[in-house]
Structure formats: structure tokens, C-alpha cells
């Protein structure tokens, strides 16, 4: 659902700040999907909804590596948009959850393309001419690039909120088979979490198996 205007603006601000955290300023990892979605859920008045969206997105984004000039999706603003729009949906709406997660994957991809656009723009506008240059000029170019990244992140977030919010508001009259959704989301999250073993190396399979056994034990004890 599209949040009220003050909440919408706050979420846009949060999306801009988290876009900065991802690369430009800080990199404290507040922009991780689970943190970003939890914060967005709180701002939008539904922390539980934000956390559910966040944990699914975190699992799917776990193996994304922001290495050098590689292309990768941008998780922070997309997670804010997904959690912010999902916050207004009925708690039991599995279809809204599914739509939010699928939308976030697309929104993250578009966010990644907007990062590429910004980096190409920076190549023209944030690089001083060769040769001697004033220190103040370098500072100004650098800070302007940071400002551009903030605006880009806020715009991606607001666009995502408006589009996803509109989609979720139309879902109420679309019939949907709900009972598949939660198990399917859980299986996708489990597969994505297991895929992270490839980051650590398959030679650690025994450790993975030990962790899985501990998980089975915990489920059994419950």
C-alpha cells in the first residue's frame, strides 16, 4: 500500500541514506536487506512485516559480492520500498508478501543499473582535469557525487514505493491461491542460504552438514 505522505518522505530519506551506506559513505552495512527492511517496517508502522520481507531478501542477496566494477543489484533502497509498501498489507496476505519479494528483486536490479548510470556520470562530473588542481575543487566534486548518490537512492526508493504500493492496492480483488506461497518462499530462502556455502568453499561441506544437523535438532525440539 502507498504510505501516507510524511511516511513516504521519511522512507525516501531512509532509502537515500541507505544507498549512501552501501558504497559511498560508511559501509556500516545498515543497507543490508534485513536491517533496511526492518527499519522501513518500523517507520511504516509494521515492523513484523518489514522483518519477514527482510529475512527473505537477505537470504536471496547473501551471495551478492560488491567487487570492483562488477554488476550487482542494489539491495538497500529496494528493501525499503518493498518493506514500506508491504507494511500496509493485511498481515495474512501471502500474495502481498510474494509480490513484494518478486518486486524487490526487480527493483534491486533497476537500482543496480542506476548505480552504473551514476558511475558513468561521475566519470564525467566528479573527475578533476589532469594536472594541478585545487584541493577545494576535489572536495566539491566529491561531495557533489555523494549528493547525487543520495538523490538517486531516494528516487529509486520512492519510485519503488509508489509502483509496488499501487500494485498491492489492486491485489485485494485478484483471486489468488495462498497456500503455496509460504512453503515456496521458505524453500527459495533455504536454497539461497545454502548457496552461500559456495562462498566459503565446498571443502567445508562437513561444517555445513554439522550446522544443518543442529538446525534439524532445534526444529525437532520445538
Amino acid at each position, binding site marked *: 500500500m502507498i504510505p501516507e505522505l510524511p511516511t513516504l518522505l521519511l522512507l525516501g530519506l531512509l532509502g537515500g541514506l541507505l544507498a549512501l551506506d552501501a558504497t559511498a559513505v560508511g559501509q556500516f552495512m545498515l543497507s543490508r536487506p534485513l536491517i533496511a527492511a526492518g527499519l522501513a517496517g518500523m517507520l511504516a508502522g509494521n515492523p513484523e512485516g518489514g522483518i519477514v520481507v527482510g529475512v527473505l531478501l537477505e*537470504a536471496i542477496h547473501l551471495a551478492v559480492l560488491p567487487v570492483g566494477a562488477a554488476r550487482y543489484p542494489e539491495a538497500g533502497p529496494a528493501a525499503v520500498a518493498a518493506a514500506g509498501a508491504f507494511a500496509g498489507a493485511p498481515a495474512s496476505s501471502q500474495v502481498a508478501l510474494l509480490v513484494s519479494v518478486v518486486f524487490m528483486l526487480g527493483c534491486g536490479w533497476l537500482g543496480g543499473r542506476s548505480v552504473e548510470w551514476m558511475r558513468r556520470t561521475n566519470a564525467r562530473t566528479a573527475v578533476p582535469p589532469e594536472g594541478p588542481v585545487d584541493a577545494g575543487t576535489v572536495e566539491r566534486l566529491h*561531495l557533489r557525487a555523494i549528493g547525487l548518490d543520495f538523490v538517486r537512492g531516494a528516487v529509486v526508493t520512492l519510485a519503488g514505493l509508489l509502483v509496488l504500493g499501487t500494485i498491492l492496492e489492486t491485489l485485494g480483488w485478484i483471486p489468488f491461491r495462498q497456500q503455496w506461497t509460504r512453503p515456496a518462499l521458505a524453500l527459495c530462502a533455504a536454497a539461497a542460504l545454502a548457496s552461500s556455502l559456495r562462498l566459503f568453499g565446498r571443502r567445508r561441506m562437513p561444517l555445513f552438514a554439522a550446522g544443518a544437523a543442529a538446525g534439524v535438532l532445534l526444529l525437532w525440539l520445538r
Partner: protein
Amino acid sequence: MLLRSFAVQGSWNYRTLIGTGLAFVLVPALRHVYRDDPARLRQAVGRHAELFNAHPYLAALAAGAIARLEADGVPPETVARFKAAVRGSLGSMGDRLVWLMWRPACALLMVALLLAGAGWWIAAAAFLVAYNALHLWMRAWGLDAGWREGLQVARTLREAPFERLGERAGDAGAVLSGFSAVLAVGWGGDHGWPYAVLGLAALAAGIALGPRIRWVAAAALTALLAAGVVLPNNP
């Protein structure tokens, strides 16, 4: 310089990568070193705004060493050769330790805590404290070591415990990966043995596909969404 190092990637671009950012970090030191010579200050800022790249946390180490070389009056050609020599290793060491091992392991800790029943605040705080303990140490240690060692900083890098730390993080990450994957299957509900077998298949598919699982998951969820709309009334 330490505070500015947090924004070293602020103007990341495809031409000079973090070149402008490195110059931005170095400006306070260069202003101090060349406070009586504005022309040399402009030359030094221009030289350091050229192409450079490193892992953002270890860029502080390069910045500290470059500031030391400038303060010691080392010739610009030597400083340029030093920058070219360290940028590859600062990138690969940081990528391997932080992006490949430390961050996924800490993120898995957060997910595992949440799926095991801990509150979001606890899980998020555990992630942020664990992750940023290394992050902040790398920045502060890097700047200090770079300034102390100057050209000899490569030796300090070799002696740093990055390799061991990465190995331990990888071990912990593998355990947490298995643990959280099974708990994620459990989050889907109790649907008997057929679902448990599907869960096992999902884990196997995740391990087999690696990072490509993201695209497979996106396609599967999109197909599920379409099927749920098209087949709403079928049993």
C-alpha cells in the same frame, strides 16, 4: 583523514575508480605538508586524483602510507610506483576477507539468530557489532600502519592476520549456512515428509547452483505468482 576515509568511495567512477576519493581523503594531510607552497599542494592533489583502486576499508592504509611519503618528501615518481604496486593487493585481500568471508558469515549469524527465535533487535545488533568490529579496526589500523610504515607497509600487510581471520570466518559461515538453511525450511510450516524432501532438494540445489540460485529463485517465485493468479480455484 580517518573520518574522510569513510567516504573514499563517494565519487566511484569508471574512469579513475576511487581516485577522486583518495585525493579527498588525503587533502587534510597534503594541506598540512604543503601549507607554505600552494603550487605544490595543487600538484600533489592533482597527482593523487588519478586512477586508484583498493578495497574501501584498506584504502585507509594506502592513504596513511601516501601521507607519510609526502611528508617525508619522497619523489612523486616513487609515490606513483608505490600506489601502483599496492592497489592490486589491497583490493584482493580486502575483497577476499570482507566481501567473501566476513560479511556473509556475519549476515548468516543475523539470519540464524532471527530464524532461531531471537528478536530482530538482537539479531541486527549482533550483525552490526560483529561486522563493524572488523570494519572499524581495519580502517583505524590501516591508517595508523600506513603512516608508521610508509614504503615498508607491504611487510605489515603480510604479517596481518587476514588469512587466518578469513579461514575462521569461512568455517563459522559454513556452519551457520547449514543451520539457517534448515531453519528456513522449517519456517515454511509442517507439511510432512514430502515437504521435508523438497527442503532437502532445495538445499542441494542451492549448493549446486551457488550464486546463480538468485536468478532461479526469482524465476520460480515469478512463475508461482503467475500460477497462483491463473489457477486460484483449483484444489
